[in-house]
């Protein structure tokens, strides 16, 4: 019995030692690989930098491992530059095996590989990747959808505007990622957003109207004023916020009317927007709202008066019926 236990202990000790050796070996091999890669990167950086700046580069024939490192470095650079530098990076990747490999990997059965491919395709900056990435917005895996949305923004792929608004509304991609992607697409997304502002879905209209506030310009004031009459309170509230963001005086009358909206958060956003627009004609109504409305809307109204007419706020705060919100705004103003 003792002899058997001794043998078992010896076997276990031998296995542990072998395991330890394997771990140390693996660690050393990873460190060696890391050093080799860092060295390759150091050597290839001048070429990568030249590729971002020069149109005529004689590309040396590189082994596959070095091409992969070069692709990684260029991918990192493409996240940091815009304009012709980014176009040159796209030009480098166009038609390469690296691009074809990542496009193919979008159909891989492993979700992590699809997500990685979607991410890398954004860094490669080739707009050819746009349509397959749009298709991946409905992937069954959340990471693949998020990576695809992020990359569509990186590619400034304007045809992705509607699908991105849809995933934003359906919340199948985190709001921050989908919203950021739409902002990255920028003004090129506006025609699609203007069309969606008239969609039959109130959720789509609301999202479109909000984004127009971030990406639009004075020409969108008319559309936003019309949205202030929408049957959906969410659309009216976001239209008010967008008019404030664009600081469009054209919307002042509609915003002042919205102070009488039956939904409090529409009144809240209208008050804030009037403050941003600086509409002096609305001061009396804002003062009334600051005294009588429910908490959030009243507070927004008092803050708006502080922006438009500080003297009127201080005078109103001195009256016996001023209420807490005018007092608070006046105190903040004095500070």
């Amino acid at each position, binding site marked *: 019995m003792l002899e058997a236990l001794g043998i078992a202990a010896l076997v276990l000790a031998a296995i542990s030692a072998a395991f330890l050796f394997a771990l140390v070996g693996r660690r050393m091999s990873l460190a060696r690989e890391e050093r080799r890669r860092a060295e390759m990167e150091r050597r290839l*950086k001048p070429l990568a*930098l030249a590729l*971002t*700046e020069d149109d005529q580069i004689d590309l040396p024939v590189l082994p596959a491992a070095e091409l992969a490192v070069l692709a990684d470095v260029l991918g*990192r*650079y493409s*996240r*940091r*530059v*815009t*304009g*012709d*530098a*980014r176009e040159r990076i796209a030009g480098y990747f166009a038609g390469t095996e690296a691009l074809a490999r990542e496009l193919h990997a979008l159909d891989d059965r492993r979700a992590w590989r699809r997500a990685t491919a979607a991410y890398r395709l954004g860094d490669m900056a080739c707009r050819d990747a746009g349509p397959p990435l749009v298709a991946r917005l409905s992937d069954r895996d959340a990471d693949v959808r998020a990576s695809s949305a992020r990359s569509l923004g990186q590619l400034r792929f304007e045809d992705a505007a509607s699908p991105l608004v849809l995933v934003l509304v359906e919340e199948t991609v985190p709001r921050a990622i989908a919203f950021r992607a739409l*902002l990255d697409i920028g003004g090129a997304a506006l025609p699609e957003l203007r069309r969606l502002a008239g969609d039959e879905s109130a959720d789509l209209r609301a999202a479109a109207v909000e984004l127009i506030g971030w990406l639009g310009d004075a020409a969108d004031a008319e559309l936003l004023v019309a949205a202030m009459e929408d049957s959906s309170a969410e659309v009216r509230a976001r239209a008010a916020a967008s008019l404030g963001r664009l600081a469009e005086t054209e919307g002042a009358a509609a915003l002042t009317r919205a102070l009488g909206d039956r939904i409090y958060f529409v009144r809240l956003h209208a008050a804030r927007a009037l403050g941003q627009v600086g509409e002096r004609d609305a001061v009396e109504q804002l003062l009334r709202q600051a005294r009588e409305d429910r908490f959030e809307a009243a507070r927004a109204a008092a803050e708006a008066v502080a922006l438009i007419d500080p003297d009127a706020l201080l005078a109103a705060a001195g009256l016996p019926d001023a209420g807490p919100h005018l007092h608070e705004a006046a105190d903040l103003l004095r500070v």
Partner: protein
Amino acid sequence: MVTPDAAPLVLVADDDPDILDLVRYRLERSGYAVATADSGTEAVRLAGELSPALAVLDVMMPGLTGFDVTRRLREDPHTAGIPVILLTARAQEADVQEGFAAGADDYLRKPFSPRELSARVQAVLGRR
């Protein structure tokens, strides 16, 4: 400062080594000498030591931010005249006003166009 080969010296500070690579490459090609710092503290030290003709500073650096560095440069009579261009991410655009209040001369949004950067550097130096 103008380097011995008559190239104006530009100090670039960013904690992102890739940005440092890209900015340095572009500015050197445009005929400037470049000194780099990977933190705000290092940027303040190099500015005092080298008296660069201009500084390009990232807004979000660990320790001293680009705003802090700009303020420190303005407070020191030796560095008060160094023009500053801030590099700022889109999310920090609301803070641009703070940058101008701190004494910055211009700002550029990240991701940036290297060509635009060199045009801005040239314009700011030309204004001085």
